[in-house]
């Protein structure tokens, strides 16, 4: 079943065209890794899917919802959960409150039920003991895991990761990719923008290389990382992998 479909998507920021005709499909249960240079448009692609940015042309379909239609676009948040580079946890709420806010306000659960499901989500990411801690009291890795729990608690069918580990100190990256690997193993449909090539190779079903607003190449990780056909892909991998 096709969970995400982008058809000829164009997106501009003022004068600058960032997405120049993107075509992409993501099947249920697939883990798609998106790589590319800064400014290539990969984060924008994710944000377009999640209705955080409008498009100028093309169609965006998420589980049958036309996200390009402003009237129905809001529905996408029922289906997709997003994890941000800057975590974006609510600093004035505890970890548990962060997780249960939407459960109470959007799903209209009562406090007890919300706390129960919230507790489970925190357990899932290994942070049940941090339920009453505030974001400022947690490490970056812990904060990001709470952010993942917050998105998971809403029981999405798709998880979008926008450079989820780029803002973390290197030693904290592992705890977050660990959770992401777990999710992948559980069959979650995932779209992951990342620089973590190791993760991409191990966990990705497919790798998509975005270059200057278009998808330059895509394929299974074992093919794309070892024998990319597009010279731009080769250049990029050379720059990124041979640090």
């Amino acid at each position, binding site marked *: 079943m096709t969970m995400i479909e982008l058809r000829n998507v164009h997106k501009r920021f003022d004068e600058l065209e960032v997405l120049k005709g993107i075509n992409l499909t993501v099947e249920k249960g697939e883990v798609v890794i998106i790589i590319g240079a800064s400014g290539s448009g990969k984060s924008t692609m994710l944000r377009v899917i999640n209705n955080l940015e409008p498009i100028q042309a093309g169609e965006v379909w998420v589980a049958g919802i036309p996200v390009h239609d402003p009237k129905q676009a809001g529905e996408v*948040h029922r289906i997709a*959960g997003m994890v941000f580079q800057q975590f974006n946890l609510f600093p004035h709420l505890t970890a548990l409150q962060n997780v249960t806010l939407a459960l109470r306000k959007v799903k209209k659960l009562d406090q007890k039920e919300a706390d129960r499901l919230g507790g489970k989500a925190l357990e899932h990411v290994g942070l049940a003991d941090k339920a009453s801690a505030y974001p400022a009291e947690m490490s970056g890795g812990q904060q990001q895991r709470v952010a993942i729990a917050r998105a998971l608690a809403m029981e999405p069918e798709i998880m979008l990761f926008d450079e989820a580990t780029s803002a973390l100190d290197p030693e904290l990256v592992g705890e977050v990719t660990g959770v992401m690997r777990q999710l992948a193993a559980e069959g979650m449909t995932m779209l992951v923008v990342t620089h973590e090539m190791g993760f991409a190779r191990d966990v990705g079903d497919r790798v998509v290389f975005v270059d200057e607003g278009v998808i330059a190449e895509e394929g299974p990780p074992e093919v794309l990382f070892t024998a990319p056909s597009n010279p731009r892909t080769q250049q990029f991998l050379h720059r990124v992998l041979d640090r």
Partner: protein
Amino acid sequence: MGWQGIFESSGILFTGLVNTLLLSVASIATGTTLGLIVALLRTARIRGLGLPLRLYLEIFRGSPLLVQMLFIYFGAAYLGIRGVDTFMAALTALTLYEGALISEIFRAGIEAVPRGQREAARSLGLSRYQIERYVILPQTVPIVLAPLVGQYIGLVKDTALATAIGYFELVREGQAIIDRIGMPIETFIVIAGIYFMICYPMSLAARRLETRALHA
């Protein structure tokens, strides 16, 4: 000494103090409410409201409160609007004036909340109202507390302008005392002292709030 005369006029002083406090507290309430509403409307970027709100702010921040107060008081009489006594006119002027200034304080606070907060909240499916109420505004409070208190201090001092339209606040009562017993120096010093005792603690509080906000 002549201080006896002032002591005997304490009744007049007390009336002035009560009236000053009344006007101050009322304008703080109405001004803050208006300011918050205007700030929310401006940050929501609702079509058609942008220009009128901008005009409102330009006019009320770019002209003296005194003229605004005179305009409202005498204007109401001119237009035949009944029930606008000195208190109402002063309150209306203060509300509109302070509301304009306070709305900018709130707007700065709202815009200071990182954009990512809104995006995260939207991703979870929260409605516009829910985002402002549960995510944005709670984070705005610690940012705006210090400037708000600073503004309130200004507001208390601004109530003195109501003298011009005959409202019996502290300065006017002070002048009434001077008319009765003379002794302008001593009387004014007492009035100044009363204002100081109201405003100075607020200044200290604002300063403490500011250091707290910086360390948050």
